[in-house]
């Protein structure tokens, strides 16, 4: 009895401390909640990678280098906390998998700029045209803008020299015309190829193609063996700058195409966050009033353990989770229900241990549906308490002493709590694994955490609080306080 009271006091102090940390870290901004794009506003892009020209064994390597290149570009874009990840979408209907790149840019609402910065694949190519071909064409043609003439462009044949062989690129200015020029330094492979091509074709025209467009076609006067070249054309300074940037940061190893884009303005998210907080507080107050009115003293216990539940959840959202820690804690909680509550402490210990391993846990990204899941889980957390109290009442009606009724009530309610929550966990897991968007997985993760934490608080908080208020003697008053509903 005293032991239980001491434990209950300890638990309350523990919860208050965690609650204080949750509050302070939010006010001071040291560890804010991690909001999803739908709440913070931003851009969500999904690209499909075209892996048809890559041998299956190289795909995963290519995808990760694609990720790195895109990440560098996104970082140049100056976004705080961007997310770039690859995804392998296994489809059941066909044998081949689809490879995707998912990019989230918080705070960016101008898709057009973002898409340009990410998807710009500067396909720089050097092609060759024979001198007499050009002359024949010039003689027969009357068009003045040769660069845009398809027939003219088709005179140039591929040499195999591309922008991917460029090791360094810089922006320079032509001293006489003041026009921007892009100077290139080839890597060793490029230098050799460029050297042999220029040596064998002196007098011919070297066509420089950018993204399939011919930008200039100087005559080859000498063999260029040092692996250096300059591209001049009618560049604007901005165009030249972005070409230099893209060449330096690497061309994309795999062609990608945009298949989905989403922008969420910041205003909608703010409404959802404020609405969610407001709804959470009002729900809590109304549920608390209902519980105390209907379940009296145990109702108060339920309100307290609900407060513990909310604090623990919020702390977990901040600290983070990982699949491994969820599974381990779930096993501990089920063991705690089956054998001894001490396994609940093991779960806490395991979780605490995980927080010391760097990068083992990642914070829970809260989405609008995540907030809905949290508020929904409050309802389910109450259910465990209601189940226990109803069983307690039955035992009291059968004539048990109060403390006896409490123990029996707990014992009897366990099976229902376990089975109903297990089915919720099954639902949550399937949603998490097969959820196609962050909106769904965001819901599922919060739901799973909520169900597990609600079971945990039922075994620890509800039980301890209830045992510590148990009156030593069964009197009429104590029976009234412990009982519930309209009929005694």
């Amino acid at each position, binding site marked *: 009895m005293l032991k239980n009271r001491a434990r209950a006091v300890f638990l309350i102090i523990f919860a208050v401390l965690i609650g204080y940390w949750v509050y302070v870290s939010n006010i001071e901004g040291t560890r804010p909640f991690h909001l999803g794009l739908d709440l913070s506003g931003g851009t969500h892009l999904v690209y499909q990678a075209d892996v048809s020209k890559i041998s299956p064994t190289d795909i995963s390597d290519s995808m990760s280098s694609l990720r790195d290149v895109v990440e560098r570009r996104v970082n140049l874009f100056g976004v705080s906390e961007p997310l770039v990840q690859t995804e392998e979408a296994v489809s*059941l209907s066909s044998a081949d998998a689809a490879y995707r790149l998912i990019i989230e840019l918080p705070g960016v609402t101008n*898709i057009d700029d973002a898409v340009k910065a990410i998807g710009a694949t500067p396909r720089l190519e050097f092609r060759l045209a024979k001198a007499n071909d050009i002359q024949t064409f010039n003689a027969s043609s009357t068009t003045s803008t040769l660069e845009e003439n398809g027939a003219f462009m088709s005179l140039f044949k591929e040499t195999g020299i591309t922008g991917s062989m460029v090791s360094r690129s810089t922006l320079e200015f032509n001293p006489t015309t003041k026009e921007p020029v892009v100077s290139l330094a080839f890597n060793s492979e490029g230098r050799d190829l460029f050297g042999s091509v220029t040596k064998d074709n002196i007098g011919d025209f070297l066509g420089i193609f950018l993204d399939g467009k011919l930008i200039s076609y100087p005559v080859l006067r000498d063999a260029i063996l040092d692996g250096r070249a300059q591209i001049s054309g009618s560049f604007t300074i901005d165009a030249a700058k972005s070409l230099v940037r893209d060449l330096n940061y690497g061309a994309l190893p795999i062609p990608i195409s945009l298949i989905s884009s989403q922008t969420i303005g910041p205003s909608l998210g703010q409404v959802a966050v404020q609405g969610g907080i407001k709804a959470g507080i009002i729900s809590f107050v109304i549920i608390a009033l209902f519980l105390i009115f209907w379940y009296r003293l145990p109702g108060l216990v339920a309100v307290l353990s609900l407060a513990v539940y909310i604090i623990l959840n919020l702390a977990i959202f901040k600290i983070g989770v990982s699949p491994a820690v969820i599974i381990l804690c779930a096993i501990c909680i089920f063991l705690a229900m089956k054998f001894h509550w001490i396994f609940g402490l093991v779960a806490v210990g395991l979780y605490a241990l995980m927080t010391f391993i760097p990068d083992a846990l990642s914070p829970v990204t809260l989405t609008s549906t995540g*907030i809905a899941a949290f*508020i929904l889980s409050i*309802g389910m957390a109450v259910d465990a308490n209601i189940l226990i109290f*109803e069983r307690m009442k039955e035992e009291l009606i059968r004539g048990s002493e109060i403390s006896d009724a409490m123990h029996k009530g707990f014992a009897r309610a366990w099976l229902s709590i376990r089975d109903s929550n297990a089915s919720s966990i099954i*639902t949550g897991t399937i949603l998490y694994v097969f*959820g196609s968007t962050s*909106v769904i997985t965001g819901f599922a993760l919060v739901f799973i955490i909520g169900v597990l934490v609600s079971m945990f608080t039922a075994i620890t908080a509800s039980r301890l609080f209830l045992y510590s208020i148990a009156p030593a003697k069964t009197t009429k008053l104590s029976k009234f306080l412990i009982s519930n509903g309209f009929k005694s």
Partner: protein
Amino acid sequence: MWIVKHRKIFYSISAVLIIASIAVLSIWGLKIGIDFTGGTLVEVSYPDTRPDQAVVNTALFAIDPAASIRQSGTDGYIVRMKDVSPEEKVDILNALSLNGTAPAVEKNFASIGPVLGAEALRKSILSVILVMLGIVLYITFVFRKVSQPVSSWKYGLVAIIALVHDMIIPIAVFSVLGNFAGYEVDTLFVTALLVILGFSVHDTIVVFDRVRENIRHNVSHKNFETIVGESVSQTFTRSINTSLTTLLALVILYIFGGPMTQHFVLVLIIGIAIGTYSSIFIGSPLLVTIEKIGRK
């Protein structure tokens, strides 16, 4: 217990609801959102004055003749059209602001390719099927020790019947709302259905658990119907109180949670209300009916 005794009344109510739902669905179908079909959804608001819908419609005609426009709130529009490239998006925003004469603020933009849409649909259907399968297996497993007088997989079967009942009614409600108010079925809607699924089973299992316990302690050889009746009445207060607290939380979320999750929460409210009804008035009485059929 009066619920089990008068089960035919509740069967009839549910039968009427289900037939009505099927009728509604076959007449109006569902308005499928861009999540599944692919396409573009743009939401804009006009801080100054909102231009006339017909004017905006004409402006958008050049980009997509099939674009549909709906008012959102008092100062904005929601536009649905084919999926577009980022370049075309600039054109759309230009058109919506009537080339700058009516400044429009972009609140929300989504363009989803048909490939991704089809995949989302496939995944959604798959997850519904998997959740159902997982739950039947789970129930069959935890009730394996009660095979008399009704074998354990039949508990799972009844849970699934209750589930289908609980899902078809909110789907039909959305068919009606889709027809009259333009409510769309999207991935969020499917998520809501799955949550209803989880909740409905949660409720049904609590009653079944009681049935299981009462069968084990059945010393006075009561018949199955009496046991189920007693179990329903023993869990009655709990079922109502739990659903009440959850529904309270949801209604408050519906009122204050903002427009993003409003439809989602609405599906949950309908589904959980129906789910509570079915776990008390349909699920457990069905056990009795199945047991009676088995005895014949």
